[in-house]
């Protein structure tokens, strides 16, 4: 015969202070874990969601990011006519030659960061089809105009279209804001490639190219054709692979965070065990009565486990409800959280608690509830009824 569910739940209400403190402990562990996990997974999500599988990034062989690559102009001119590249309506190949430079940008509090400024051509938007100009318009060639990524606009400028901004050696006019569904293009500034080359005093205007693979064309064959051209030492790889590689360094961080969460979780298990032992201790006579009435050991065991898991579940709910707005508030207060990257530029991310972070936190809370309840529940279920009744 099972004990009614209300029994263990009522007992939580009975000892309010003890329940409250234990729920608070679990909630704090959940908040700490969720915030940390969300930070790292937001960073990963930003990087991993960048790029399209139909796009290739072409760099000088041996360079691992477009900030450190340089391409001869002729390489661009010949690459345009390689087989397997998509074309737009006018038959123009979708090859976007780009220059990347990372000048200083200044936060409102005076701190400076390297921000990725991408020199682009008119074809670039067609190649990067995830990037949308959501306010204003795209830059015109040679006008010293700039389009700000959403993250950049929030973090450094917070001024609208039409304002002027100084970076690199000159002053630029902001003509638009771009968004890309939260991916890392939103941490970039787009300007005209020639404007940027002149400002950075680069004799060669391009550092890399982005190429759209024609629908139905063999992507791997195109990658080989680009890599095998003996005239230019080029290397092509899918954009998604390029950004996934950048996200790899976030994996170490993820491991670290999970390690710390486990440490905190074990601490919380100890706390929960204490509370549950006290709960058993306070009810020895009651348990004896239940057993004498004919409730089985298993039903007593389950009742105490339910109590412990309910405790942890309550902590989980409170924790997630606090962590989610807290993360957004912290991001907002700081103008996004900046991360340095292998590309020498700053990724601005929003700390957003994702579903997977909640799943991990829930697993942790469940583990705390079960591990913390097991030993006390075992003791309760193995009390001998006669002795229990006498002791109480």
């Amino acid at each position, binding site marked *: 015969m099972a004990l009614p569910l209300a029994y263990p739940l009522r007992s939580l209400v009975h000892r309010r202070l*003890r329940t409250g403190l234990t729920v608070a*402990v679990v909630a704090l562990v959940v908040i700490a874990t969720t915030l940390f996990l969300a930070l790292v997974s937001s960073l990963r999500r930003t990087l991993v969601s960048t790029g399209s599988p139909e796009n290739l990034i072409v760099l000088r062989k041996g360079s*691992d990011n477009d900030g450190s690559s340089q391409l001869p102009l002729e390489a661009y001119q010949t690459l345009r006519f390689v087989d397997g590249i998509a074309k737009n309506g006018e038959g123009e190949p979708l090859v976007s030659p780009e220059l990347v430079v990372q000048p200083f940008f200044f936060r409102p509090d005076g701190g400076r960061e*390297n921000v990725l400024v991408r020199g682009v051509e008119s074809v670039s938007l067609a190649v990067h089809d995830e990037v949308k100009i959501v306010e204003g318009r795209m830059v015109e060639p040679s006008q010293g105009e700039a389009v700000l990524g959403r993250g950049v606009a929030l973090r450094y400028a917070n001024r609208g279209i039409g304002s002027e901004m100084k970076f690199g050696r000159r002053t630029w006019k902001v003509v638009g804001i771009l968004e890309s569904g939260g991916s890392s293009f939103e941490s970039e500034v787009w300007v005209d490639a020639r404007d940027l080359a002149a400002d950075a005093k680069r004799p060669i205007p391009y550092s890399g190219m982005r190429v759209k693979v024609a629908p139905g064309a063999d992507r791997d064959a195109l990658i080989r054709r680009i890599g095998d051209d003996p005239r230019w030492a080029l290397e092509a790889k899918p954009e998604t692979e390029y950004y996934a590689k950048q996200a790899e*360094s976030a994996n170490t961080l993820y491991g670290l965070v999970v390690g710390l969460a486990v440490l905190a979780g*074990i601490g919380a298990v100890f*706390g929960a065990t204490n509370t549950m032992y006290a709960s058993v201790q306070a009810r020895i006579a009651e348990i004896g009565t239940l057993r004498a009435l004919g409730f089985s050991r298993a039903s007593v065991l389950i009742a105490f486990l339910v109590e412990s898991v309910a405790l942890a579940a309550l902590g989980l709910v409170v924790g997630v409800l606090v962590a989610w707005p807290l993360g957004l508030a912290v991001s907002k207060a*700081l103008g996004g*959280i900046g991360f340095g990257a292998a590309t020498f530029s700053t990724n601005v991310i929003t700390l957003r608690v994702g579903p997977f972070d909640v799943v991990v936190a829930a697993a942790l809370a469940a583990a705390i509830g079960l591990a913390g309840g097991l030993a006390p529940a075992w003791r309760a279920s193995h009390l001998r009824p006669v002795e229990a009744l006498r002791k109480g």
Partner: protein
Amino acid sequence: MKFFPFIWRNLMRNKLRSLLTGGAIALAIALVCILRTMPAGFDYFLEQLATNTRISVHNTAGIVYSMPYAYRARVKAVPGVVDAVSWTWFGGAVDKDDGVTFPSFSVDADSIGVVFGDLKFAPETLEDFRSHRNGALVGRQTLKKYGWKPGDEVTLSSLVWPLELTFRISGEIPADVDPRFWFQREYFEQALREKGVSFDQAGMIWARVDDAEKVPAVMRQIDEMFRNSEAETTTETEKSFFQNFFGNLEGFITVILIVTALVTLCIVFIAANTASMAVRERLRELAVLKAIGFHWRLLFVTLVAEAALLSTVAGSVGAGLSVGLTSMLRTAAGWNQQLGPLSGFVMTNVLIVQALFLAFFIGILSGVVPSFGAARRSVAATLREVF
């Protein structure tokens, strides 16, 4: 002190509970220590490597913008400047698939020992570096990570330049947290010449000023000198340079601090829970003790002392645990691109002492509220209630 056995016995009454509470506090204190080593590692990094007489001269537009190499001689000629050395980012990787795992720069062999003299290089190391064209000075952190020794040959592929260069390690840069890899500019320039590239730029210039008092004036003079030139400069002290360079870590540090505060609060709750349980069980005997003449203040103090003792003992175990864990993390993590100096996990004595104080303070805090109530309760009421 004469009450110590009394306190100790009380603590040992419910061994399991004391053990569990102690374990939870120890883990939480260890966690606080580990988290704090991250921002503290940054301060330690600055303290170890930065001096206030070394200044950085770089392009105003950003550190990826270069400046003419000739600027070095002009900086050197400024009165008050002892010597100046140029730095150019090499972006060397041991394994291209892993990318850049430590910062590598070409430097001027004749000046590096003067400008960075405060790092206390062994004279024979500098001599070896100057006399070997392919010599390299490598920070302890990187030497340890790759198990390199002076005399070893290592090959780095540049991710920035079309170069793959082999270096012979001359010796260490004697600072524990130093990841840097320095080699001769001449060797680098020559390798580029062989590729048909003539290189007359420098990424940055570091200068040593003979007197800290003169630093502001020298910095102004340098920036004034290059105003309206092809590369305008910003000069700042080494400390300010590093703070700016790692400025984008601020958000991450804020999150670490929030998490640390949460974990601390967690310890308070765990300790308070235990203290209140312990006190509740002992209401009757407290009343008896008071009835036979012990003053409530004494009972209050022993109860608080019990909580503080448990917390402090657990705190020292936790601090010890964190020393072990951070040393493991140090070997495992090394130089992380996203964390920079935060991944140093440097444990200092100050951190340990602070952790012990934290544990002690939390113990007292958690003991005060339940103990005060219990110690002040009227004897008659308690005894009537319980019997």
